[in-house]
């Protein structure tokens, strides 16, 4: 009944809107530099104490790894059984191992291999993962199917388990082969993340715009899609640098990572196992160095994630 509806009509009050004058809309501030995800992320990271703590730690470990000679003049391989398991003396602040090696010198020189394995494996995994994930996600079709199935197979073998199997049969064991073997099993994780990020970036307006402007498919992928899909990969790569260092130490500890002659925290911890009752300090120092290094990369990963993921930033 229309008459009834009319009689029920009520007056609506609408709050007055302060309209922005058209002039103000046009006055876009064009002087200020454009803000990208990266500048935003940098601003967010810069303000956090954790970022500076982890960066300083990582820098310190890097300097120790590159110039170990600056920190110790003692030969880490010089062994004198006369000093076996002896405590700290002048010039040897952390005492001696069972074989009579200087613990401090070995901790300093051990950084090198950890950093090499961590960096090489992370770079390799990121490169392979980004390329494969981006191609699979962007072109789709049979390429995506084949790549995803192969990734599934590698993904179903846990990295450490696969590495244990290969390292036990491989003849040449050094930092590079350890990094190669670890990357062989770790790339699917990055590839999957990259594929997902590319899939969602592909839907964006700027990709349509780029196609409309006549830019080629491949150029669009390289210039627009990949840079916009990198954020999650960078987060995972930072954290995985720490996990690769742990993996190297674990393999060396098991006796199938670096060869016995190498200087590695994992090897030293494994060797000190026999002196755990008599001289726990020999196990403590390499363990502490290893843990602090890994902690630094994990902390940095946390900060980077918060900076690159606006949702995480809001949640904090």
């Amino acid at each position, binding site marked *: 009944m229309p008459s009834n509806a009319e009689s029920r009509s009520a007056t609506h009050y609408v709050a007055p809107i302060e309209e922005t004058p058209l002039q103000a809309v046009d006055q876009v501030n064009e002087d200020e530099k454009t803000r990208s995800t990266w500048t935003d992320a940098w601003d967010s990271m810069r303000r956090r104490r954790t970022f500076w703590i982890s960066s300083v730690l990582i820098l310190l470990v890097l300097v120790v790894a590159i110039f170990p000679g600056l920190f110790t003049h003692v030969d880490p391989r010089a062994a004198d059984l006369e000093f076996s398991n002896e405590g700290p003396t002048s010039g040897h602040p952390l005492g001696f191992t069972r074989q009579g090696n200087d613990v401090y010198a070995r901790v300093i020189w051990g950084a090198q291999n950890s950093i090499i394995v961590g960096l090489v494996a992370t770079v390799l995994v990121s490169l392979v993962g980004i390329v494969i994930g981006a191609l699979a996600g962007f072109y789709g079709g049979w390429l995506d199917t084949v790549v995803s*199935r192969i990734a599934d197979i*590698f993904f*179903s073998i846990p990295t450490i388990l696969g590495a244990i*199997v290969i390292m036990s049969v491989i003849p040449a064991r050094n930092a590079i082969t350890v990094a190669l073997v670890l990357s062989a099993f770790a790339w699917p994780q990055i590839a999957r993340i990259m594929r997902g990020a590319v899939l969602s970036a592909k839907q964006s307006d700027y990709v349509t715009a780029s196609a409309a402007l006549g830019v080629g498919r491949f150029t669009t992928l390289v210039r627009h899609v990949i840079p916009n899909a990198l954020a999650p990969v960078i987060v995972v790569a930072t954290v995985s640098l720490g996990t690769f260092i742990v993996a190297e130490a*674990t393999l060396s500890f098991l006796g199938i990572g670096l060869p016995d002659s190498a200087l590695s925290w994992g090897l030293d911890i494994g060797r000190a196992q026999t002196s755990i009752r008599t001289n726990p300090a020999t196990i403590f120092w390499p363990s502490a160095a290893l843990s602090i290094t890994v902690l630094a990369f994990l902390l940095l990963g946390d900060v980077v994630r918060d900076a690159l993921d606006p949702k995480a930033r809001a949640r904090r």
Partner: protein
Amino acid sequence: MLWYLGKRLLQLIPVFFGATFLIYFMVFSLPGDPIAALFGDRQPSPQVIEQLRQQYNLDKPFIVQYMLWIGGVFRGDLGVTYSGLPVSQQLAQAFPITARLAILSLVFEAVAGIVVGVIAGLKKGKWFDATALVVSLLLISVPTFVVGFILQYVFGIQLDLFRVTVSGDAPWSELVLPAIVLATVSFAYIVRLTRASVAENMSADFVRTATAKGLPRRRVVGVHIFRNSLIPVVTYLGVDIGNLMVGAVVTEGIFNINGVGGTVFRAVKLGEGPTVVSFVAVMVIIFMLANLLVDLLYAVQDPRIRYAK
């Protein structure tokens, strides 16, 4: 749901063959002669080598070797170790020990992790929360074998509460310490996961509604927050079954436990190809099934996954 389960099981088949082939390929075709490894420094006669090569199918093309092996696996025949013991028998002895170790670890990390995580999440920003966050981060960054040594030293040697190594049949009481070591990293992850989940749910609309309609805080926390916060934790526990299998290699090695991990640890050191292949294959299968379980749990929770084509 059944349709989804079927689809996921079908997807598992190529992955299973691919993964086992990859492992088999890695162990048996990379440089190094398993027969030579069997004899160590001694030089066996050509006839003996020939006979052994036939016995272990090493004279046949590689792909045939794999087919013979995988055929045997389906018949329950996992081959014979170089010392003449059937691998299946070795597995039957080792598996229950690792299963018990993994169960203890799961219980420990679930109970302790959820309790600490819930308290930290409810008191977000307070000292308990801050401590829990720092400790969990430390536990994640200290490698398992280091945690193993520390606990071995403190509880096994200094306080003399536990045995440092585990005896052959691994009674439950001796598995407590190794289980805690195995669980540390996952415990830390569960604390962080639960904390984040609880903290997020605290400000959820349904919690505000529950408080607004006058429910006591006990009920709001115990039913509304707690249950909803557990969803990601339960799925994490599923993934973790697979992780524990891998962690067992190191933990069982340290504590000298005769489980699946410990056997792989020793077989790797001795170059026992058949044992490594079969045990790792079993671990990969468990890992795959754990991942399947998690996917199913997701599907139960989220109907969008089940119906997605």
